[in-house]
């Protein structure tokens, strides 16, 4: 068990390191010259050379990589070229919104997908099962940005229940939550369509096993058998997918925040790419990658929590 934890933790750190190398390398071979972007086309060669020196772009690659990692570890990602403020400040301002969106999206996804998936499995080959399967097929086929537009048309433009987009800040929590409802739903619907299917097939697999019959023979209600005996045993594939989906949700905020005009990390990365704002883009890409790697690390640890048999093998 201790060995397992150690191995996974070392793997986690090595993965993050590898990701940082790739992010750094890709950012530095991309076309586009940051000094030129900052100073504009009219800049003199002297000015460009001076700025290049000031940004440290004349240092060898390895030196620049090491100092980038060292500073990043101290939450210093440099100064944004386009906003002229520290990147860490930019991220700090926008992180709560994106995290709220991703966490709320994940929560809605889990509630929807688990109840629909388990429900469909318990009504296997009946109307309820077909209904859920049809809806989830639809959900998988529909792109999130198009679904967002439909949601805005219906709930914001036609019914006027919710704001169509924008975000006024956290000072008015009710208004803030209202502006997050539609983006959350748009993010969650597509993901829950996938997860509901996984849940259903995994639950069906478990329901065929002998211990489910034992549970029924103990006089437990169908509901109790489903939630207390079938679901925990169906969790391993579900958790695997949830880990991948959390990554998809975090990156999905890039599209959703742009559609709903929300000032989060997704919008920031979009703007920074257009502005050739290298330090910001580099920090954000690294941050998104770190979130994905961390999600997978947590999933690995969850396997052992779910299934005690893995402790022996691990």
């Amino acid at each position, binding site marked *: 068990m201790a060995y397992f934890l150690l191995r996974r933790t070392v793997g986690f750190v090595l993965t993050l390191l590898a990701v940082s190398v790739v992010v750094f390398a890709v950012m530095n071979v991309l076309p586009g010259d940051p000094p030129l972007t900052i100073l504009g086309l009219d800049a003199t060669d002297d000015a460009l050379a001076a700025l290049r020196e000031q940004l440290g772009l004349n240092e060898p690659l390895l030196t620049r990589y090491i100092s980038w990692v060292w500073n990043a570890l101290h939450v210093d990602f440099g100064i944004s070229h386009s906003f002229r403020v520290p990147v860490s400040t930019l991220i700090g301002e926008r992180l709560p919104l994106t995290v709220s969106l991703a966490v709320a999206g994940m929560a809605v996804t889990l509630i929807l997908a688990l109840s629909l998936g388990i429900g469909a499995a318990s009504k296997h080959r009946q109307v309820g099962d077909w209904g859920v399967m049809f809806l989830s097929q639809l959900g998988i086929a529909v792109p999130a940005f198009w679904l967002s537009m439909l949601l805005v048309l219906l709930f914001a433009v036609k019914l006027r229940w919710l704001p169509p987009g924008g975000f006024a800040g956290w000072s008015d929590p009710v208004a803030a939550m209202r502006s997050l409802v539609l983006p959350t739903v748009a993010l969650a619907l597509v993901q829950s369509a996938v997860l509901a299917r996984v849940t259903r097939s995994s639950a069906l697999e478990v329901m065929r096993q002998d211990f489910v*019959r034992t549970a029924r023979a103990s006089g437990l209600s169908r509901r109790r058998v489903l939630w207390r005996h079938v679901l925990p045993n169906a969790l391993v594939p579900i958790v695997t997918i949830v880990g991948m989906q959390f990554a998809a949700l975090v990156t999905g905020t890039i599209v959703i925040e742009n559609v709903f005009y929300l000032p989060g990390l997704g919008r920031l990365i979009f703007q920074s790419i257009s502005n050739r704002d290298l330090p910001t883009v580099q920090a954000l890409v690294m941050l998104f990658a770190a979130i994905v790697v961390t999600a997978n690390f947590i999933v690995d640890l969850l396997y052992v929590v779910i299934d005690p048999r893995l402790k022996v093998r691990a």
Partner: protein
Amino acid sequence: MFQLTGFTASFGSATALRRADLTIRQGDRLGIVGESGSGKTMLALCLMGMAPDAAQLDGRLEIDGHDMTHATETAWQHMRARRVAMIFQEPMAALNPLRRVGDTVMEPMIVHERLGRDQARQRALSLFEEVGIPDPVARLRQFPHELSGGQRQRVLIALALACNPDLLIADEPTTALDANVALRITDLLVRLATERGMALVFITHDLAAVARATQDIVVMYGGDMVERGTTAEVLADPAHPYTKGLLGARPDPTAQARDHNGKRRRLPTIPGTVPPLFSLPQGCRFAGRCPVEIPRCATNRPAPQDLGANRIAACHLLRGQRP
């Protein structure tokens, strides 16, 4: 207390259980024997109200005079564990792998009798002792994969006894265990039934185990109960040709391995196999494999004949007296 009258379970044209009559009283120890596919397990599942959803049930199934033939799932949930409990064939697969076995055994007590966790743990401990699990305090906290096959079957027996059932159905409880452990589990079931005054239905194809464990026996073939009586009498002097064949198919440990010509003796068998449910003969289910068949057998179902002393057999060749 448990009574089946003309009870039939069928799937469309396939009949898994045909007009079964059976009474189980307190303290009865009843063996049910027959080949795979003879309807033994179907009978057990019907007694638990756990027949597959697709099964059509006819006739009457009563528990203490209440008609349960078409009872709802909720009504059955009240019966299970408290009135009738069951242990299954595969102890390896019959326990939830993610739960400590103590929690599994305590769950029906908490759900049905609203016991607190401490009370439930006390009862689980005494059940573990009763079924002969050594070091019960530590076992309660273990997971199924940490126990041997015999231990798991004992846990399943403890689970079945959790709410003091009146009837315990054991569906081939020893098939998956090695011979030595199987014998001990069989004796354990007999001891528990006797001590608790609980009825036991012991389903098996192990005739030695039946002889050891039961007072009465029902022989099943193709969904029919073909013979019934006290275990000792039926095994000593079978009336139905199928029972004779079944008994004849027991390997005889005293027989020489080679006959007088020096050829290796083959084990005796009943020729043929049990036909699939949908192509069973309309009359006697054994027609086609029976060594003493007469033309009527394939078309007319032989009525159960009372042979006296609680012996009943269903065969055209029995005319109210022993052949």
